[in-house]
């Protein structure tokens, strides 16, 4: 009879966290940016059918990275929770905070229970108010931690590099077009196989973009931006990819500006 190995609780949790983090790091990033009229979500997602960004309720939206089946279940649960509350009480009684709390409890319980594998997902829950100051963005990690984000936030694959790019350029109260151009440029600023950060132009058809727009007349403020609208907002990008400013920490381009990374295999969204 073999003696079971002793694993300390610290090690157990660390292993589970490493497992979840590895799964999340495989996917591409999602950027969320607060702009003048609401909250903008941008992700690189070649699939037209499998969304990373979705509507939950009137003023609440959801974005996720990681395993599709897991965050899709969480999204559906969120829609059910919101619709149930809105139907039983009133539309105004559905809040992003309550939803973020439900997600945190769910992810936290699954993470620390021995029986289930931890979810390999990270989520954003955003809610807009009547004023920009009332907008809220919550970031939820695989272990159920909640963080309140301000201005911009990134999760997924090269989150650190993309967030670093945004940190240097983000300005509060930007117009939609400016915020979108910044977010797309930031998503294109990813390390190549050598770990060197490079700027590439992401094709419009590979972008999934949605906004919570408080200027909309209807109660449901969530809108997906169509490729045509994206073309119009982004304009001519080939010439407008921001050059790395002098003195920036990124390593110089060793390949002599060979251009964008083409023909990358599509990743599960």
């Amino acid at each position, binding site marked *: 009879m073999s003696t079971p190995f002793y694993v300390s609780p610290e090690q157990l949790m660390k292993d589970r966290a490493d497992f979840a983090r590895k799964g999340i790091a495989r996917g591409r990033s999602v950027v969320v940016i607060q702009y003048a009229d609401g909250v903008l979500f941008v992700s690189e997602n070649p699939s037209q*059918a499998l*969304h990373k960004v*979705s*509507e*939950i309720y009137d003023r609440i939206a959801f974005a996720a990275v990681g395993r599709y089946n897991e965050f*899709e*279940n*969480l999204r*559906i*649960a969120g*829609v*059910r*929770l919101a*619709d*149930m*509350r*809105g*139907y*039983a009480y009133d539309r105004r009684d559905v809040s992003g905070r309550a939803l973020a*709390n*439900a*997600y945190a*409890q*769910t992810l936290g*319980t699954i993470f620390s229970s021995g029986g289930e594998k931890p979810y390999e997902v990270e989520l954003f829950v955003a809610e807009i108010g009547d004023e920009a100051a009332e907008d809220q963005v919550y970031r939820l990690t695989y272990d159920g931690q909640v963080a309140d984000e301000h201005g911009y936030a990134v999760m997924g694959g090269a989150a650190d590099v993309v967030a670093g790019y945004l940190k240097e350029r983000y300005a509060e109260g930007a117009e939609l077009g400016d915020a979108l151009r910044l977010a797309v440029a930031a998503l294109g600023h990813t390390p190549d196989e050598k770990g060197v950060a490079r700027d590439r132009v992401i094709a419009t058809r590979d972008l999934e973009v949605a906004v919570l727009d408080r200027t909309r007349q*209807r109660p*449901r403020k969530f809108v997906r931006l169509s490729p045509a609208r994206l073309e119009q907002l982004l304009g001519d990008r080939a010439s407008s990819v921001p050059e790395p400013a002098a003195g920036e920490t990124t390593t110089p381009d060793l390949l002599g500006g060979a251009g964008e990374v083409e023909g990358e295999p599509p990743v599960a969204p």
Partner: protein
Amino acid sequence: MIPGPRLPASYLQPGVSSFSDFLADQAPDLLPGRRALPQGQAGDLAPHGTTIVGATFPGGVLLAGDRRATMGNIIAQRDIEKVFATDEYSAAGIAGTAGLAIEMIRLFQTELEHYEKIEGTTLSLDGKANRLSALIRSNLGMAMQGLAVVPLFAGFDLGDARGRIFSYDVTGGRYEETGYTAVGSGSMFARGSLKKLYRPDLTEAEVVTLAVQALYDAADDDSATGGPDVARRIFPIVHVITAEGGRRLSGDEVAAVADRVIAGRMSHPDGPTAPLTGGGHA
């Protein structure tokens, strides 16, 4: 019921994209039509909504309703709203027991929005009409005790690019109407009026006038239908749906039309007349 902090396992299960099915599973007490009623007629206990008219025009469809709810001989409410947008491209007007009908429409609105969010696409107009059928059918027991709900459903069919109207009976039977129709206590008079005034080539503005005329005629002969309340400035609710989506006309827009109709009736109390012979337009 309403869950606590952690999401219940049933919420995380994929599969069901119908909100009423989910409700039946999770909180059946919130569903209309699941309540056991004692024997007897209950029809006089609750307010009833009265007349709704609907008409199509090239490029869209209109739904309009008067503002009266009655309880026997009493006017229960003089400014009730009986026409609701059910989603961007559809609307429903309610006749029958007001409380149950409003609850049913709330559930129907949530049902459509829920499907749209879960599936990422909207139901077809026929799909929506059939879902409403199912909700009406579940109310049959109450209908037999005098608490019937009979809505009129209208929407813009994006596939066919035209407006369509559906009427229902208490068993959930759904019938597509051509051109125009009316439901509720004043519907006979409204339909007579529509029959004489309706033409398939009316413009959006003309159809609004048509609906206000028809509701005026219904109120003229049916005591349960409210006419335009000039003193309180209470006028019908008018909802128009086109390819650009649905729009409820503002109070001022309807008031302007109603004022013109009333002005016309000052000299001709029976309203516009149709020619005696021939199919030609007046």
